[in-house]
C-alpha cells in the first residue's frame, strides 16, 4: 500500500471515530428519550442551550472560574517555586519541609474543600485556596527536583566567577526551568478539576455552580454545556501555556509531551 493510500485509509478511521461518537450520542438520546425528563439531550439541544446560556450567565461563570483557577495557580506556583528552591538548596529547610510535603501530598488537595469552606466561607478563597494547594504541591516537587540536580560544573563556574546571590539564584532557576515548567503545566491542567469540584460544593458563581444548578433542576443540557466549556478552557489553557513557553524559553525542548 502506498503511503498516500495508507494515509487516506487512516483518515477513514478518524472519520469513523467522529461518526461513532456522534452516532452513539444520537442513538442514546433517542433510546432514552422522554418528553418529561431529558436524560441524554441531543447534540443540537445542547448547542441551543449553549447559545441561550451564552446570552445570559455563561460569560460571568467562565470569568469567575477563570479568576479562581488563574489566581490560585499564580499564587501557588510562586509559593511552590520559592519553597522548592529552598528545599532543593538549603539543607535544614529540606530536613523539615520535605517530609511535611510528602505527608500532605497524600491528602489530595480536593479533600481540603470542606475545611477550606469552614475557613474561608463560600467566596473566592475557598476555591482559589484549593488551586493554590494543587499548584503548590506539584510545583514544589518539580522545582526541588530541578534545582537539586543542577550540573555541578555550573555551580563551580558560578563560584569561580564570584556570582552574587541574585545571579546564583538565576542560574539555579534557569537550569531547573524545564522541570519547573512541567510542574506548572501539570498544575494548570489539574486546576480545572479543583475549580469544578470546589464550585460544586461551595458554589455561588462559576461553571461548577452552573452545573450544580443544572443538576438541581434536572437540566442535563446545562450540565453538558458546563462539561464542554471546561474541556475547551482546559485545552485553551494548555495551548496558551505551550505558546508562552515557546516564546519565553525557546531553548527548552523535549518536555512538550502531554
Amino acid at each position, binding site marked *: 500500500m502506498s503511503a498516500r493510500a495508507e494515509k487516506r485509509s487512516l483518515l477513514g478511521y478518524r472519520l469513523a471515530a467522529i461518526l461513532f461518537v456522534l452516532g452513539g450520542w444520537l442513538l442514546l438520546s433517542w433510546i432514552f428519550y422522554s418528553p418529561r425528563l431529558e436524560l441524554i439531550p441531543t447534540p443540537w439541544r445542547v448547542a441551543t442551550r449553549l447559545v441561550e446560556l451564552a446570552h445570559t450567565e455563561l460569560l460571568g461563570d467562565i470569568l469567575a472560574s477563570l479568576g479562581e483557577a488563574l489566581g490560585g495557580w499564580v499564587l501557588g506556583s510562586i509559593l511552590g517555586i520559592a519553597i522548592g528552591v529552598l528545599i532543593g538548596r538549603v539543607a535544614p529547610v529540606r*530536613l523539615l519541609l520535605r*517530609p511535611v510535603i510528602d505527608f500532605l501530598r497524600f*491528602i*489530595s488537595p480536593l479533600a481540603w*474543600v470542606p475545611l477550606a469552606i469552614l475557613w474561608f466561607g463560600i467566596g473566592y478563597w475557598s476555591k482559589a485556596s484549593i488551586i493554590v494547594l494543587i499548584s503548590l504541591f506539584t510545583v514544589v516537587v518539580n522545582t526541588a527536583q530541578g534545582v537539586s540536580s543542577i550540573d555541578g560544573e555550573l555551580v563551580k563556574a558560578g563560584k569561580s566567577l564570584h556570582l552574587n546571590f541574585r545571579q546564583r539564584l538565576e542560574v539555579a532557576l534557569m537550569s531547573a526551568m524545564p522541570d519547573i515548567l512541567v510542574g506548572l503545566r501539570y498544575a494548570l491542567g489539574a486546576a480545572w478539576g479543583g475549580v469544578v469540584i470546589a464550585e460544586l460544593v461551595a458554589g455561588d458563581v462559576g461553571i461548577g455552580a452552573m452545573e450544580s444548578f443544572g443538576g438541581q433542576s434536572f437540566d442535563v443540557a446545562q450540565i453538558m454545556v458546563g462539561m464542554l466549556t*471546561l474541556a475547551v478552557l482546559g485545552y485553551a489553557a494548555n495551548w496558551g501555556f505551550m505558546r508562552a513557553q515557546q516564546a519565553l524559553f525557546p531553548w527548552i525542548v523535549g518536555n512538550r509531551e502531554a
Partner: protein
Amino acid sequence: MNRFARYLPSPGGAASAVLGFLILLAVWWGTSLIFHTRAVILPSPPAVWRALTEMAAAGALGLDVRTSLVELFWGFLVGTALGLATGMALARSRGAAAFLEPIVETFRFILPFSMVPLLVVWFGTSILGKIFVVAYACYFVVAINTAAAIVEIDPLILKAARMLGYSGSRLLLRVIVPAALPRILTGLQVAIAYAWVSVIAAEYIGAQAGLGYMITNAQTGLETDKVIAGMVIIGAVGLILSQGVALLRRLTVPYRSSAGW
C-alpha cells in the same frame, strides 16, 4: 549539607510521610495550645482523636471507609481493565490507533469531576455513578502509559524474540508484557492516586455514605474535628494504596526501580 542528608528518609516514601505527619502534628498542637484557636477553626489534636474514636466506636467510620473502598475497587478495576485494553490496541494496531486516538484525545479534556452532577441525575446516589467517575479518571492515564510503554519497547528485542520463534500470545506474555511493565506500573501508580481522589470528590454531592460524604456532612454541621479526622483517614488510605502499588512494583519488576524526588 551532607551532614543533614544522611538523617533524611528517602524522599517520597512512607517513612518521610510519617515524619512529616509528626512535624505537622507538633506545629498544629503548638498552634492550638498557644493561640487557643476556636474548635470551629482549628480543633486541637486530642479533640480530633476523640472525634475519630467516637466515630469508630459508633461504626459510622467503618461504614464510610468500606463504602469508599468498594467504590474505589470497582472503579479502578473497570478503568484499568479498559485502559490496558485501549493502550494495547493503540500501540499494536494502526487501524485501532487511528480510530481510538481522536476519541481518547477529545474525551481526555472532559474532566471526570465535571460530570459528577450529570451522573447524579443519571444514577442518583447509587454506586454506579461513583464507579463511572473513578473508572473515567483512571482510564486515560492507564491507556496513554500502556500505549507509550509498548511503543517504547526496543524493536531489537521484538525482532530477536520473533527470530527465536515467539509469536502471538507467547510473544505478548513472555516478551511484550515484561518489557512494558515498568511504565505500565507507573501509569497504575498515578491511576490509583487519581482513583482515590475521584472517590472522595464524587462523594461530595449525591452520596449517602463514604469518606467524602462524611467530611462535607461534618462541614455543614461545623464539626471541624470530624472534617480533619476524615482528612487524616483519607491521607492514611492514600498512603497505604500508593505503598501497595509500590510494593507490587518491587515484586514484579525488581529490575527497574522508581526514584523519589
